[in-house]
């Protein structure tokens, strides 16, 4: 592999008829030097076929551009032609843009243009799972957006307030657990009813039609609630421990109320199913009320009767300090949910029972028919939570 002396190479260049392709120019130079193809192929370590393709400027049968440029440069050096001129001439025949590695836009579009070599490059480019990878964040974004819209729509439609009401109706359902003994078996059905507008009627009906034997039932119930309290009393209520309490209570109290086992079962099922939703409040209310129930069962009976006769008692809330008040009646007609200033006097005009939450309870006074109602039994950390049904006091 010996290069020609410089002056000889110059004369070869000057004699060239300057054909178009770089391969053809090299071929002419080779023939001018009377070198045969096999000898040149051996010196360049290329196969005869590749060299013929190179001389014929048939780049479709040759490997990637980088190799073609290298072969041309080595060939030019061998026959004594300036390598730069040859490789520059190649640009017309094999533009740089056809490089498969470079042209990503075509690869993405799955373009089949260009030489067979280039097409092979594009095909392998299409094998990558890039489209999935790249679109994944887009779908994730869509999902999050969808979820956000759903939440906003639900909020606008009041779905969440319904859920809140639902939890209140659960507490209403739970309330009869302590009141059951005072009421007729039909009263237990009330818990499963959602239309609470009929409650007053059913209450009054049940209480008027209280059977003669109710006294006995009350006695047994008092014992039963005693047992229930005995179970509850030693564990003075960490909030998370309270949650299972209703479940324990139900079978205990259920015993005397065997008049309607089907409904009772229903109640239990419902309680079980709604238990995660039912707040701690209901449990404490239930306990408090059962305490009250124990204290004066007979007196309650009398007051209930009078209340029915006299219509709704007047419940007035008056504030001496700023308090957070949240009141909702059973029908959803009367609501208070705000921070009320000192001096506010509000009369409850909704349908009892009322679900009441009073923050800063020291500054609030609740009166029923002018009689002050003691909130201390319902207060924990200066916040009172109770379900107030004046008809049952």
């Amino acid at each position, binding site marked *: *592999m*010996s*290069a020609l*002396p410089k002056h000889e190479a110059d004369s070869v260049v000057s004699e060239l008829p300057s054909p178009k392709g770089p391969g053809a120019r090299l071929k002419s130079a080779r023939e001018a030097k009377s070198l045969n193809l096999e000898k040149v192929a051996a010196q*360049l*370590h*290329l*196969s005869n076929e*590749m060299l013929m393709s190179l001389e014929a400027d048939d780049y479709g049968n040759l*490997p*990637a*551009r*980088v*190799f073609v*440029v*290298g*072969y041309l*440069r*080595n060939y030019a050096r061998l026959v004594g032609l300036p390598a730069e001129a040859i490789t520059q001439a190649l640009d017309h025949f094999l533009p740089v843009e056809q*490089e*498969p*590695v*470079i042209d*990503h836009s075509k690869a*993405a579009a799955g373009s089949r243009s260009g030489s067979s*070599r280039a097409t*092979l*490059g594009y095909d*392998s*480019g299409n094998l*990558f*799972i*890039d489209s999935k*990878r*790249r679109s994944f964040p887009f779908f994730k974004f869509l999902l999050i957006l969808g979820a956000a819209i759903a939440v906003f729509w639900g909020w606008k439609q009041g779905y969440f307030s319904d859920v809140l009401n639902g939890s209140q109706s659960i507490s209403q359902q739970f309330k009869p657990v302590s009141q059951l003994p005072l009421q007729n078996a039909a009263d237990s059905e009330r818990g499963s009813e959602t239309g609470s507008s009929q409650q007053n009627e059913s209450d009054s009906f049940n209480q008027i039609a209280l059977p003669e034997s109710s006294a006995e039932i009350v006695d047994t119930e008092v014992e039963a609630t005693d047992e229930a309290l005995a179970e509850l009393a030693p564990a003075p209520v960490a909030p998370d421990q309270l949650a299972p309490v209703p479940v324990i209570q139900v079978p205990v109290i259920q015993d005397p109320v065997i008049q309607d086992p089907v409904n009772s079962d229903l109640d239990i099922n419902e309680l079980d199913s709604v238990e995660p939703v039912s707040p701690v409040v209901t449990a404490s209310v239930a306990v408090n009320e059962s305490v009250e129930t124990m204290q004066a069962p007979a007196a309650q009976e009398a007051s209930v009767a009078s209340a029915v006769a006299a219509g709704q008692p007047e419940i007035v809330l008056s504030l001496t300090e700023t308090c957070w008040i949240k009141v909702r009646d059973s029908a959803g007609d009367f609501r208070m949910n705000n921070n009320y200033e000192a001096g506010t006097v509000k009369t409850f005009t909704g349908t009892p029972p009322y679900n009441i939450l009073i923050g800063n309870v020291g500054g609030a006074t609740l009166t029923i028919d002018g009689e002050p109602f003691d909130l201390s039994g319902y207060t924990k950390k200066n916040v009172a939570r109770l379900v107030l049904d004046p008809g049952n006091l």
Partner: protein
Amino acid sequence: MFLRRIRGIFSNDLSIDLGTANTLIYARDQGIVLNEPSVVAIRQDPSRGGQKSVAAVGDDAKQMLGRTPRNITAIRPMKDGVIADFTVTEKMLQYFIHKVHESKIIRPSPRVLICVPCGSTQVERRAIRESAAGAGAREVYLIEEPMSAAIGAGLPVEEARGSMVLDIGGGTSEVAILSLNGIVYSNSARIGGDKFDEAIINYIRRNYGTLVGESTAERIKKEIGSAFPGNEVREIEVKGRNLAEGVPRSFTLNSNEILEALQEPLTGIINAVKKALEQTPPELGADVAERGIVLTGGGALLRDLDRLIEEETGLPVIVAEDPLTCVARGGGRALELMDERGGDLFTVE
């Protein structure tokens, strides 16, 4: 972290060829934006209790190499392709990253892809990663040099055909067989341009009894260095300190002498290539035999190195276009491809 992201918006993605001899930075959509020697000059200030500060980096520092007063030390923080001085490398990277973002008001925090020798250990890679992070990089990716060099040279690495690349850098020579975007075989010899210079220095000392510096040796290599005997004999006049007389003397070297001087490191590279060809699976070996070996890196510019390898292996050998910048350009393209086709396209760490 969040601040870095914001700063990242105002920064260019960079591919850095953190070489032993030169550091090249390729900025995305801009091309090669920096090509400077990996040299840092450090000034030690005795008045401040020996506190060290950076006196110069890159070209300026290289001119100081071997010509510094007592309080300045010009050092090359990279050796054999890996970090030799962690702190200085970090400072150097910081300087280079700032330099390519010169016009920006906000401190840059770019994504950075750094090319590492395939023979580097986990510890060495971690040092490079942390050094780049310390220099302000938002994210640091590492790619093996032969892969980057092959992409930069335009080799069809995604094809199911073997491509062989020999990247001769300042500190290391990497030889690798690539196929389907992965490295099938790679071998790294700690022989590179530095070893060539060293060989020239040793040859001159042995035969001429004269000591020349690294810069002079490099100049000799660039001007008359050759790897294969040619028809033309070139000469160069150099000056060095005569060891016997102790005074500077001038003498003339020719290319054949340098060829003789370079035999040892060149043999090392040839051996690495032959070993790689031995270890290559036969199908890929056939592909390589048909298409040839591609040379990249500054070492590929040594005159007639391709012809030497061609004669030794009997395979076609091709010098890539612009071999010095192949690795940095390939890294830049790898960054682009990663964004376009997903991160697992190449074995990027």
